């Protein structure tokens, strides 16, 4: 337990350093993008006086180091400033848009793991037989098309030609649910409205599957490759020689070591979905943070860019810490090496 705690502390320490680095990098890059943010924010009809006033309010005429100082000072007090895109506090925007994306990404992640790993195991278990060929073909198909292509295909197939799922949004117009947490799967339950709860899930499925598809293929291919490699290890041969049932060998001896590299990639994929969700959110009119992030970058909304990137970076780091802990639990050598180092 203390070894895991040590890993956790080390990872958190590294994450803080990474976050500071990301904030500096993005702060600088956001200011290098061509275009005056004040001019863009105020629109084409703004006068020179209006632009100068807003530049002053945003400290844009100051040295970049001083600007960063103002940013950190506000950040420490929990103030990310006002978005020039929505004219609202960035914290309010993030609080409104983040739950929608997290809900989508969590379900997509669950689908990715829930389908990708078993398919990979199945393919490895029946290596060079028809289930293997089928899984590999499907995996190749899902990996080769980006999420937004799947989004459009799924929408056309299952919302237009076969109207089984809704086309857009998170909830049907007929429901008016008070937003408590922002997670509609939770808020509908809090409201005690089961019809709305099912409606939320109904809306979630297509975009989540679209987002998960390429990850499923990747997870399946990786798991298969790792398991095939593991099957060639001497201890598996020994288990086979002892006459253990194939499913027991797969479950107890092949799967666990094969899972470690897969977990690392799945962790990265899971976090990367936060960024990749943009086009899926656009196709399904999903009011999420990824779409917000792209829009604020296009409008050079400096405060919102910083807020969005920091939140996505933070989520990425949290997911990777969790993955690292999982791997440490699965692989005693990692725990051991950490103890030796410390």
């Amino acid at each position, binding site marked *: 337990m203390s070894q895991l705690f040590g890993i956790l502390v080390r990872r958190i320490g590294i994450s803080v350093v990474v976050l500071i680095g990301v904030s500096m990098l993005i702060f600088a890059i956001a200011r290098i993008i061509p275009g005056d943010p004040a001019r863009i924010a105020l629109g084409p009809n703004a006068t020179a006086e209006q632009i100068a006033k807003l530049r002053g309010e945003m400290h844009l005429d100051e040295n970049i180091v001083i600007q960063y100082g103002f940013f950190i000072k506000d950040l420490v007090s929990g103030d990310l400033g006002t978005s020039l895109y*929505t004219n609202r506090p960035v914290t309010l925007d993030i609080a409104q848009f983040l739950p929608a994306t997290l809900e989508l990404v969590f379900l997509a992640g669950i689908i990715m793991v829930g389908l990708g790993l078993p398919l990979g195991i199945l393919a490895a278990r029946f290596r060079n037989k028809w289930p293997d060929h089928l899984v590999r073909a499907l995996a190749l198909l899902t990996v080769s098309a980006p999420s937004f292509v799947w989004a459009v295909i799924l*929408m056309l197939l299952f919302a237009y030609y076969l109207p089984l799922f809704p*086309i857009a949004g998170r909830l049907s117009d007929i429901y008016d649910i008070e937003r408590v947490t922002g997670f509609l799967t939770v808020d509908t339950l809090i409201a005690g409205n089961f019809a709305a709860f099912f409606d939320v899930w109904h809306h979630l499925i297509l975009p989540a599957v679209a987002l998960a598809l390429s990850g499923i293929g990747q997870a399946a291919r990786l798991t298969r490759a790792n398991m095939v490699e593991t099957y060639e290890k001497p201890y598996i041969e020994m288990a086979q020689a002892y006459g253990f049932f194939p499913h027991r060998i797969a479950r107890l001896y092949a799967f666990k070591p094969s899972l470690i590299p897969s977990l690392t990639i799945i962790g990265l994929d899971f976090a990367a979905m936060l960024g990749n969700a943009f086009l899926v959110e656009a196709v399904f*009119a999903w009011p999420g943070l990824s779409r917000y992030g792209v829009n604020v970058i296009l409008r050079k909304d400096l405060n919102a860019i910083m807020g969005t990137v920091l939140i996505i970076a933070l989520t990425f780091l949290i997911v990777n810490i969790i993955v690292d802990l999982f791997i440490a639990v699965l692989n005693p050598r990692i725990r051991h090496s950490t103890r030796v180092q410390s």
Partner: protein
Amino acid sequence: MKLKYLLGSVVAASASFASAAFAETVLRLDEVAVGELDPAKASDYADSILMFNVYDTLVLPNQGGPGHSGHLAESWTSDGATFTFNLRDGVNFQSGNSMSAKDVVYSLERSQALGSGLSYLFAGVGAEAIDDSTVQFTLGAPNAAFVASMVRLPIVDMAYVEANKSDEWGESLLSGTSAGTGAYAVASHNPQEVTVMTKWDDYFLGVADAAPDTVRLRYGLEAATVRTLIAQGEHDIASQWLPPEVIKALSDNGAQLLTETGTGAFYFKMNTTKAPLDDVNCRRALASAFDYATAIQMIAITDSVSAGSPSTGAIPVGMFGANSADMVQAQDMDAAKAQMAACSYDFADYDIEVSWIAEVPLEERFALLMQSNFAQLGIKSYIKKLPWALFAEQVSSPENTPHISQLFVNAVTGDPDTLLYGMYHSSNPGTWQSPEYLSDAQVDSFLEAGRAAGSEAGRQEAYAGLNARLMDLAATIYGFDRQSVFAASNRVKVPAMTDPSKAFGLDGLGFSFRLMEMTE
């Protein structure tokens, strides 16, 4: 048992909501994100739709013709630099507070203090509440376009804002709630997702039963999504920003096409400070070589509906000073060759830079058309894609401004002054509207005369003179007069966008929901 209870509750809830949905009419439309609810910050199309439905203004443009009529104001008088408005009695805000002259003054001061949106229209304007129902505006100089600019001053409920605000001018409050006298009240607002508005039955003009009970204005829908939604009967009016081929496909599938016309045009602006375009004959040669007919074909949506109509000159048809609709411009290569011969520069020494705005892909097609037209005269040109932000910065200096810039420009109040003064008066060089850097005493004089004229005849004369002078200077190639086209389901009737005698001639005002009729 539990499952049975669960299913029962689902069915019961669905049934109750279904019956509720049956009882009310819902209009669903979309626009580009984000929707800005604060009326003092409203500037783009989505903002205008919100503003015109949630708030009211002292005047409104006349439907189907020029001029303005009182709305919150009953009447007004003016001596040119002072405008006195008599307000309508018995108008209440959605809060229940009654509207008075103090609210008008507060709305103006709030707009000026925030300095956002279209507040520049009111720079230097003072306001005073003479009594509860009389408000007087004082201008620094006579301005005949001032009444038109009143359509961009939505009146805010001062008492409500003062009682509920958390910052000096209630910015946080009004970015999420409504404080107007409008026919629709905001039920919920998410600037990136949807604004839900409900009919306010106590509206001072009343609202017809057929007008939608609820309006859902969605933001940022993709073209493919809108197409699918309309095809499935889950959407009513698409935004004008759909690609023409998608609008055509929707029309082919039975959607009606709504149009809004009359306040703007598409321009190719030539930098008059940069050789060889600092020579008027060189500019005239390019203007004559442009293929206006093909440009119109490029924006055609169906055989009868297009995203623009042929240009007749420097002022869009329907405005003061415009030429008649049959005086369309046409390509004239013989004239172009003669003008080229009169040009003091040899075009062979120059490579003309034709820019297009990266966010408007249609402009690339026009850049290619222009390149092809110029090539027929042996003129070399190259095409440059510029993001809007970069373009807006580059045009602030004449050296960095491209030879030719493509722009859509609209009169934000519907008056030619707000279209032309910013583009051509020599006091406004180097803005996004004026990359021509035109400096001409006659143009200035006509613009000032149009602003100061005390009568419509005087304005007509001034702008007609301006039109002729601008055509002679050829600082701009006038591509086409713009028309916004919207694909819509047949569940809704929008007279202001289908019947020219009901059209307002102001962007966004056609979307007055109180004047629409739901048929289902």
